[in-house]
């Protein structure tokens, strides 16, 4: 039988290892605490490598935590098209995480699959935000609906849906302004957008470089607006992406895609086993 007392230092090491991979400290601590329960009463046969057994068990525990099935947006778009309805996806998150770029990547992915989405430039606040999305739309070759700076974001999103209906497009991707999750007025503004357009998916965009704050971001957005899935960006910045665990543990919502560069092709589906390898592998 495993001697948990003796393992205490190793388990503490794991907490640090996880925090070094940017898993939020409280999440890492709790994960290892629960993991201890799992180890209780585990038997080892003579000659078996104790450390390997523990590590395999930890891999399993992490895999179980993050293996939350989520929608494939291309499949969803195809379904919507076949059924003659409009798939509405709204992107949200704190400032600078990569929302606008991610929308461009998703638009590119859909276009490549034969479905042309409409972009809604509902960030009417940040300098250059409309021009940024417009340039993406032009490069990718998809329509975009804009309004002057200072316009009501909900009105832009609404117009984009009307536009899609009128012209027979079946997907609308709504870009929203970055905002701090603790800014009550701005979170209410986001709620209003959601109320007006009733999105099929509200996607939280999260920066893989984020440390402990990932927990806060996930919790606040989920409570205020509701999160259906998460996209983690900038994974190419050598970030281990521990935020994946922070999110899974906090709001139990699936990670859908990872952003792995600034190009349109740099969006991949999230694969839990790949991620566990990255987190714990050599």
């Amino acid at each position, binding site marked *: 039988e495993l001697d948990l007392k003796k393992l205490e230092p190793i388990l503490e090491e794991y907490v640090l290892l996880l925090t070094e991979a940017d898993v939020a400290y409280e999440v890492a601590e709790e994960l290892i605490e629960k993991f201890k329960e799992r180890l209780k009463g585990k038997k080892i046969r003579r000659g078996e490598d104790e450390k390997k057994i523990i590590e395999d068990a930890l891999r399993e525990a992490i895999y179980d935590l993050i293996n939350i099935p989520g929608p494939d947006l291309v499949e969803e778009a195809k379904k919507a098209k076949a059924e003659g309805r409009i798939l509405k996806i709204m992107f949200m998150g704190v400032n600078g995480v990569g929302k606008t770029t991610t929308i461009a990547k998703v638009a590119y992915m859909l276009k490549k699959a034969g479905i042309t989405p409409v972009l809604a430039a509902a960030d009417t606040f940040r300098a250059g935000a409309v021009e940024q999305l417009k340039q993406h739309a032009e490069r990718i070759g998809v329509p975009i609906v804009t309004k002057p700076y200072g316009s009501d974001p909900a009105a832009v999103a609404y117009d984009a849906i009307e536009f899609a209906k009128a012209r027979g497009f079946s997907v609308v991707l709504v870009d929203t302004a970055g905002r701090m999750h603790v800014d009550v007025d701005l979170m209410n503004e986001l709620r209003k957008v959601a109320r007006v357009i009733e999105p099929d998916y509200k996607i939280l965009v999260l920066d893989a470089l984020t440390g402990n704050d990932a927990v*806060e971001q996930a919790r606040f957005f989920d409570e205020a607006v509701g999160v259906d899935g998460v996209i983690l960006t900038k994974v190419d910045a050598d970030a281990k992406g521990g935020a994946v665990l922070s999110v899974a543990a906090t709001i139990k919502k699936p990670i859908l895609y990872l952003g792995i560069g600034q190009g349109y092709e740099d969006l991949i589906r999230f694969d839990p086993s790949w991620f566990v390898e990255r987190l714990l592998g050599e």
Partner: protein
Amino acid sequence: MLEGVRDAVRKFLRSSADYETSVNMFVKELQKTLIKSDVNVRLVLQLTRRIKERALKEKPPPGASRRDWFIKIVYEELANLFGGDVEPDVKPKKIPWVIMMVGVQGSGKTTTTGKLARFYKVRGYRVALVAADTYRPGAKDQLRQLAERVGVLFYTEPGDDAVGIAKRGVEWAKKKGAEIIIVDTAGRHRKEADLLKEMEDIAKEINPDEVMLVIDASIGQQAKPLAETFHKTTPIGSIVITKLDGTAKGGGALSAVAVTGAPIKFIGTGEKLDELEVFKPKKFVARILGL
């Protein structure tokens, strides 16, 4: 700067446990607090190891109690971590003063460039902004709009010759009599070799008086390697922490201080142009330590 720390340590040491146990308990708590604030784990372990060693080895001078001595040790080591408690000097040391903004994607460079333009304009300087981010769609429009809002000189060119734009922009600004010239560059990270090379080339051409590293308060453990790479490529002169209006504590910036030796000069506390403050060490220490 650390009165709050002093109180916290004092309170902790009031416990009835023996000295060594108290020290161990305190060190554990401190570790937790710092890691939760995104201070680099390795830095935290180094710091707490040093505190423990000193606490158990050093003999207090005659008249001082061991517990008082411990407070002094913690105080010293933390002051060290935070890079001292002097408020930064934000006055340009010569005219014209050329600042080059660098940082990872989305950290807040362009916005901070606009804020700095306002900050110095309000203080009577003639300011020029140069938009040398040729990668991000809309980046030049973004800075142009900010320059117009503040009412300062603005330079950019179409096309993707970032080095040339920066060089000609600084020359142009000097000719126009600008006293503070700020060059905005594209976001980049330490695995983007081409972009790092570009950053080095821009610095070579414009020879900035100050390279300003912009760090997002929410960044975690990658802050250290990131700052290291940036510092190796173009030596960092100062640091700005952005987005301190959120819930992130900003401990990542301490890694940047540790590896570059550069002071934190400004903090960003919102998206608006006037939401920039000169860095106050005391307030920041209190935030990181949760005092």
